[in-house]
């Protein structure tokens, strides 16, 4: 049965190609729209500062053995003491990102904008595709596939007898939606590619929580054993100089 299903060339000219072209054009358009709507994000001073504290604390942990014990202890106290240590997070002050989002309307606004620029054109194109092109078999993949791919490739066609290597128009739309990232990278420049998949990920696990990493860093620092590396250095210097002299 698969052999005698012949696709009309008109389908290629009137469904497959227009669909692809429209998807590319919409992608480009969306890029410019989102560029217009993007507001300059001013980072929260607290977040910047916490990031810097973590870098510094990490440096301290990594290179602790290079400074004298006294200096190390003073620094550890500075970071970890329970009153005003830099890494110490008072209980109850750790706010969850959800609450943070509500307290900062600008942040919510930003996310709205981002989502609007993504969702509106997507629903529109989806409706459009559904209206005009539903039910077409738009293309054929030149190799056979198993039944499991039916849901992916033949969305919108409820015929179990059609061979799986045929692609329905609605599936073609989805393939384009997620598969054009590389092309956008070429057209709009590397970092400008609108990356839907990534954005969706962002929406899921929104925001990272710096207070948590502060606490983790504090725990790490607390257990560092200071062992001044410099005591061994004189010994090594002797070796170095001997080598130089020989």
């Amino acid at each position, binding site marked *: 049965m698969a052999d005698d299903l012949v696709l009309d060339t008109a389908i290629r000219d009137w469904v497959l190609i227009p669909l692809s072209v429209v998807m590319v054009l919409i992608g480009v358009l969306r890029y410019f729209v989102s560029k217009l709507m993007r507001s300059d994000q*001013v*980072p929260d*001073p607290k977040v*910047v*500062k916490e990031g*810097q*504290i973590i*870098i*510094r604390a990490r*440096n*301290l942990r*990594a*290179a*602790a053995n*290079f*400074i*004298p014990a006294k*200096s190390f202890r003073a*620094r550890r106290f500075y970071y970890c003491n329970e009153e005003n240590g830099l890494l110490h997070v008072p209980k109850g002050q750790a706010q969850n990102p959800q609450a943070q989002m509500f307290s900062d309307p600008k942040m919510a606004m930003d996310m709205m904008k981002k989502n609007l620029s993504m969702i509106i054109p997507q629903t529109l194109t989806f409706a459009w595709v559904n209206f005009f092109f539903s039910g077409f078999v738009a293309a054929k993949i030149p190799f056979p596939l198993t039944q499991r791919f039916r849901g992916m490739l033949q969305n919108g066609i409820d015929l179990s007898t059609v061979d799986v290597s045929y692609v329905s128009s609605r599936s073609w739309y989805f393939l384009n939606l997620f598969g054009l990232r590389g092309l956008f990278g070429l057209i709009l420049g590397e970092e400008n590619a609108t990356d839907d998949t990534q954005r969706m990920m962002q929406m899921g696990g929104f925001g990272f929580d710096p207070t948590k990493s502060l606490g983790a860093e504090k725990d790490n620092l607390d257990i560092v054993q200071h062992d001044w590396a*410099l*005591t061994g*250095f*004189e*010994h*090594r*210097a*002797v070796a*170095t*100089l*001997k*080598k*130089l*002299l020989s």
Partner: protein
Amino acid sequence: MVSKVEEEEVYRLENQVENGGGGAWEYLCLVRKFKLRRSDKVLKYGFSILNDPKKRSALGPEEWDLYEQVAVAAIDCQRLDLAKECVEVLQKKFPESKRVGRLESMLLEAKGLFAEAEKAYSTLLEDNQFDQVIHKRRVAIAKAQGNLSGAIEWLNKYLEIFMADHDAWRELAEIYVSLQMYKQAAHCYEELILSQPTMPLYHLAYADVLYTLGGLENLYAAKKYYAATVNLTGGKNVRAIFGICLCASAIGQLGKGRNKEAKESLELQSLSALALEKLYKQQSSPKILLLSSMLRSLKVSL
């Protein structure tokens, strides 16, 4: 930090450009990339590119970067007329830009109108309090007015937020040294060692500060950090080897009677003296006698 290879590349291009061999744009790009201070050359070659409409338009959007670079160079060379020209061009192109606003304020600063510049920077900071360059300009203004304690204050404020910026720590350390506040300087150098534990320069500077502070404990520590510098440089750093000799001599004077000098540390100082002699023999033979009499007076006998 600029690596050796990159540095040679810059020198090669610099020579080439100076001898009329072309490559001026590449040279300027490198200077900008490595943040080198070659203001006179940047001004000369950059300006000649900007004055040539054909070359200028060939740069595309990077033309504006060049304008900025030349403007800063001109300010550094006190060619305020040229700087003003560049800034005006940029102003026309980007009327609302903060980056151009920064240049304008720098121009004010170069004219010596520190109060006005300060005000301009403050307004710029209100819009974006994370502009590190502006924070640093404020330190520079204080320094230019000779107000070192003011500079320290600004730097400390800056470091409260950007505490992982080691260049700022280094500047702070140097200001403290020039004010002879060695304890504070030592703290800064510790911070620098923490951020880059394999940089011999910081170990050396820290050792120098410790030695300057004096006291037996500090001298012992200084000697260790000199030893670390010797290790990290493979014994090529003359300052560090001299440092070991100085420390040994000073410890010998201070710690008289307390003969807990390990055999190893004696070995280190005599080896240092030998290494110095060898280095001088190789590279500076006329000074060799001077060196041995100096070592004798330090009582670092062989």
